[in-house]
């Protein structure tokens, strides 16, 4: 876990997770209120959307397309780019896909995302994380949801930056 690459990857996972969650949750809530915005049948779609949906189904090894992608399918180019970023963020790289899904689960629990919590929990299990591992992630999430609020309440200033040395390496070519 040395070097900055892992932190860039983690940050990209956090960002795209939150992006997918806010839209999926908002539109699910809207649907519950009787407002249908987008995201119905994922089989009756234009060819360009169908190609992206096929990639998504393959990546997640599931028959349906997660709501987070269905709801933006009305603009095929936008869907393809969001999907491209999400696929890159969640692919095995310096960090494993298993850990990335676990980070996304922790983010989703922390932000109270119903879509994200259910989706990334299912992905963790699919990738081999057991109930014990899930509780491990929940435990860390819970403890640091305590520490962060204690720190914020007392307005503590960062004082642990010296623990890890700066990474002198250049960005990837």
């Amino acid at each position, binding site marked *: *876990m040395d070097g900055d690459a892992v*932190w860039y990857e983690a*940050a990209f996972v956090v960002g795209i997770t939150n992006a997918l969650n806010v839209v999926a949750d908002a539109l699910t809530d809207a649907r519950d209120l009787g407002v249908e915005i987008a995201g119905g049948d994922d089989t009756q779609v234009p060819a360009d959307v169908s190609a992206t949906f096929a990639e998504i189904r393959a990546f997640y090894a599931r028959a349906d397309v997660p709501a987070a992608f269905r709801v933006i399918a009305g603009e095929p180019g936008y869907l393809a780019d969001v999907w491209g970023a999400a696929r890159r963020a969640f692919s095995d790289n310096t960090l494993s896909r298993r850990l990335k899904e676990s980070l996304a689960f922790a*983010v989703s629990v*922390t932000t109270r995302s119903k879509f994200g919590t259910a989706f990334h929990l299912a992905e963790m299990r699919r990738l081999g994380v057991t109930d014990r591992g899930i509780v491990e*992630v929940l435990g860390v999430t819970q403890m640091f949801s305590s520490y962060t609020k204690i720190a914020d309440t007392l307005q503590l200033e960062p004082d642990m930056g010296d623990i890890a040395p700066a990474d002198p390496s250049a960005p990837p070519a």
Partner: protein
Amino acid sequence: MPTVRLRKASEYSAAAQKLFELSKSWFNFDFTEPPAMSRVMAWDPHFGGPHGRAMKRAMAPGEFTRGEKEMVAAVVSGVNACNY
């Protein structure tokens, strides 16, 4: 600026000094003064003790490594917008 005066380690009781030693060992780093959070937790060892033990249990290697758990902790802190 903190809303409380963070006491120096030398101002704390013997029981709290033990928590500081555990903190130093946990981070494997020789702090000039214990981190602010350690000094906050040492204010009430009856809270800081079990809270710290729960944290150590949560962070102990299991199905996920300590490093992986530190990363989970970092993203949770990030989405909580915690500057500390």
